[in-house]
């Protein structure tokens, strides 16, 4: 048994599935990505402590090929956006050097607080700069920052005020605001490797241990890389990485814009909307990380967590008012899978009613990575929206709407899925009837019949498109760009490996992080998208 375990371990370290060698890949271009708001906030908290207030909002990132992580590589900083970064950097630097923080956050104090102290300033700037830039600073960079501190100290007559200017300039630098990947031949240099790993696994800037490993060349060796990957996956912070990935994959940033008619749904509040995002992330991390469960169970799981605000929306008991309560639904309950939660069923609905079409589209696009065309601009929704329509249920209204041949094609893709979820109203609340008529949730998906939303979850569980989708998204998220055609064989291998791992998500992320492909870059210049694979 020991020998078999050793072989399996060796295989896992060297290959993607079984003992087949990892397919050769071309790699894609190195990318320059703008830090997301979450990454910025985490970086500041990690480097300076959570007591530092990051009071700002950030320019949005355009979702590209299903991921903000990809869009972050195709974005710039606007003038007004930079003004906010500037003000924010000033605010953070001021807080860092404030009397109440400096003793904890700064490792030295000047001999005279009113005059410059190059040695002390360089010590601080060298350490902080390494964490902010995710690499050691060159001596020129340290000298340059120290000069800013020195000049500002002379003007202000205050060492800490001068130091704040230097820290501010670092936080305004592209080296901090952008994740800059530096190729080294056909792979990434050690610090770019550390950065990719850290943002994949923790959605955070590399910690001192990882940067030290990079400095020592450990990340150039499979054993050293494996050690770091396993350390980071074993850390509680791995959940942060998983949460960040699924926030991106499920478009949970849109939850902030979820609006409902509070006359129709009085229990829906902004708190409930915010909590719905947390609900799905808790559900996912509990299933995929804590329990190391089968990814496919995200469509069928009957375990979830609810807050007080969500208990009111779902009309469920909250056993821990003020906190989060675990709920396990019975086997015959229609509430199963993340697609029946408010962050999905409610988010992909209209403000005042459900939408089988939006829900079906979201399942296909977000969970199965299939593209559903947008409706033509000339389409008429009159029949569907007619308040005096004799058609009481969405199924009946959609049937009338779909008589328009221009609409029918796409609705065939979306509606059968969405109609299964009609027992959840526009706010994700369970219902049995619509306008007094019992809701019919039966249908077919890919020729297979379903009775209700829970049944649909079972079909999604068994649909290869769903597992293929998460593999594609995870890899694209990991490398921060669209998958290129030269990586198609790798994706196939990862999908097989995912199945061999019984669809364990941490195992998938580990395989990606340890693959040669993850670190490989093509010769194309940074930020230039490569040929996109048709996957």
């Amino acid at each position, binding site marked *: 048994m020991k020998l078999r375990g050793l072989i399996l371990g060796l295989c896992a370290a060297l290959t993607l599935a079984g003992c087949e060698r990892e397919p050769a890949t071309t790699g894609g271009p190195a990318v320059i990505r703008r830090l997301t708001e979450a990454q910025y906030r985490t970086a500041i908290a990690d480097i300076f402590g959570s007591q530092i207030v990051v009071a700002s909002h950030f320019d949005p990132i355009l979702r590209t090929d299903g991921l903000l992580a990809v869009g972050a590589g195709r974005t710039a900083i606007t003038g007004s956006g930079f003004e906010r970064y500037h003000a924010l950097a000033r605010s953070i630097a001021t807080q860092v050097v404030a009397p109440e923080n400096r003793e904890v956050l700064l490792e030295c104090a000047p001999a005279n607080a009113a005059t410059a102290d190059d040695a002390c300033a360089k010590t601080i700037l060298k350490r902080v700069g390494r964490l902010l830039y995710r690499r050691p600073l060159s001596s020129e960079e340290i000298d340059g920052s120290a000069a800013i501190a020195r000049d500002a100290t002379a003007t202000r007559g205050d060492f800490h005020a001068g130091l704040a200017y230097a820290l501010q300039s670092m936080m305004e630098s592209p080296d901090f605001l952008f994740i800059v990947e530096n190729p080294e031949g056909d792979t990434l240099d050690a610090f770019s490797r550390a950065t990719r790993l850290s943002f994949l696994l923790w959605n955070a800037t590399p910690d001192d241990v990882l940067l030290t490993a990079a400095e020592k060349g450990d990340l150039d060796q499979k054993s050293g890389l494996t050690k770091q990957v396993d350390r980071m996956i074993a850390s509680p912070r791995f959940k942060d990485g998983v949460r960040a990935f699924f926030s991106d994959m499920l478009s949970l940033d849109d939850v902030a814009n979820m609006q409902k008619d*509070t006359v129709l749904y009085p*229990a829906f509040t902004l708190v409930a909307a915010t909590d719905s995002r947390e609900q799905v992330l808790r559900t996912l991390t509990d299933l995929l990380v804590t329990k190391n469960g089968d990814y496919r169970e995200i469509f069928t799981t009957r375990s979830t967590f609810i807050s007080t605000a969500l208990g009111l929306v779902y009309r469920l008991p909250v056993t821990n*008012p003020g906190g989060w309560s675990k*709920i396990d639904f019975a086997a015959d309950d229609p509430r199963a899978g993340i697609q029946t939660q408010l962050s999905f069923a409610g988010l992909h609905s209209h403000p005042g009613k459900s939408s089988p079409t939006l829900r079906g589209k979201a399942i296909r696009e977000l969970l199965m990575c299939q593209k559903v065309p947008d409706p033509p601009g000339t389409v008429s929704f009159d029949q569907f929206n007619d308040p005096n329509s004799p058609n009481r249920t969405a199924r009946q209204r959609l049937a009338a709407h779909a008589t328009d041949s221009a609409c029918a094609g796409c609705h065939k893709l979306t509606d059968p899925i969405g109609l299964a979820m009609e027992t959840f109203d526009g706010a994700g609340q369970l219902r049995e009837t619509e306008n007094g008529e019992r809701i019919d949730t039966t249908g077919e998906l890919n020729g297979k019949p379903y009775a209700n939303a829970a049944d649909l979850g079972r079909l999604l569980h068994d649909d290869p498109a769903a597992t293929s989708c998460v593999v594609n998204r995870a890899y694209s998220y990991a490398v921060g760009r669209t998958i290129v055609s030269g990586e198609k064989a790798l994706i196939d291998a990862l999908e097989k490996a995912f199945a061999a791992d019984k669809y364990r998500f941490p195992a998938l992320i580990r395989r990606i992080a340890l693959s040669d492909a993850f670190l490989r870059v093509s010769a194309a210049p940074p930020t230039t998208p490569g040929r996109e694979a048709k996957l």
Partner: protein
Amino acid sequence: MIKSAALGLALAALVSASAPMAASGKKQTLGYVVTKWDTAIYESRFAEECPEGLVTGNDELWWRGMSRADKDKFTNKGLAQPVDRKNYAMYRGPGGKDVCWNPEIVKDPPLRIVKGKTAYGFNLDGDDNGNGTAKSCKHEKFTSPEGVKGVDNQMYRILGCHYGWRRNGVLDNFDDEERRNSGRGVVLIEVTGVDDPQNSAAVEVRFYKAIDPFNLDAAGKILPYGSYRVDMNGGKPRYAVPIKGKIENGVLTTEATDFSVPFYGNSTYAEVRLRDAKFNLDLKLADGHAKGLLGGYYDFDKWWEYMMKIEFLVATGDWSCPALYEASKRLADGYPDKDGNCTAISSAFKVEAIPAYIIHQNQTADAR
């Protein structure tokens, strides 16, 4: 109610939830949170109910009782402001004593009481004529709005002609609003052993005090299906006296039982201590809402304790402590002491409730 809304939930150990309509085996449990609690004041033709008019308030009695010199003293710079006036009036007893805390130190004109014949409430002593029984003193009976004779509600008789307790008065309305906004005094009603919410031959009812505030929507309205933890004391729920009852055609009725109900209102915590209390609750209103009447003999001392605590509202509610005290002592109709003086007042309260989850946490096995 949405029948399937709470079906099939498995909850953590040591935690149980009374659901608005949760199936637990064959027996179900219904949970409610009280949203409105008002003294049951029957109001129709005022001239018939209160032919003498509204009661004379403390301010007026204070003014009437002052010498010309005192009137000059208090008004030589214009009439005193309401707050000051209230305080002057409250301390109108000999030596400046508080007439609410010492209601017998002055003799006010007799309280104007309800002379009408109709009132909400229950027949608490089982007698239709008001001649008095072993548990009641001789008193005048009412007839209910539905025509049921023998109704006991002496609390209505003494409070019914007060501006502060009538429909457009401030006391009960303010109480409801205050509970909603402050989250204090949230009362829960749990009905266990329900076979069918329409008809169940034997159920048990318990009142609890919640430790969680109301769940409100954006407009400040109390939302149904909120979760409320039961206030515990020594591992057991406070209040929670089991009350036997039944449900017929969707209406819950209970047997006469002695129990207390927590109360908060007018910035004051109190305890409504009732004897021979009866409760009915219509469970079949729209959206699972419920509405009913709770009545019983309200312990006089407990009630007057509350009245003394809210003396700061004596001008707002426009009553006279001495007159009210004298009348309530005289008209108390329940549980005579060894001297034949009754120690409780028949009372009734209108109760409205909405579905809620009642959360029992860390409850010891013998708590129920």
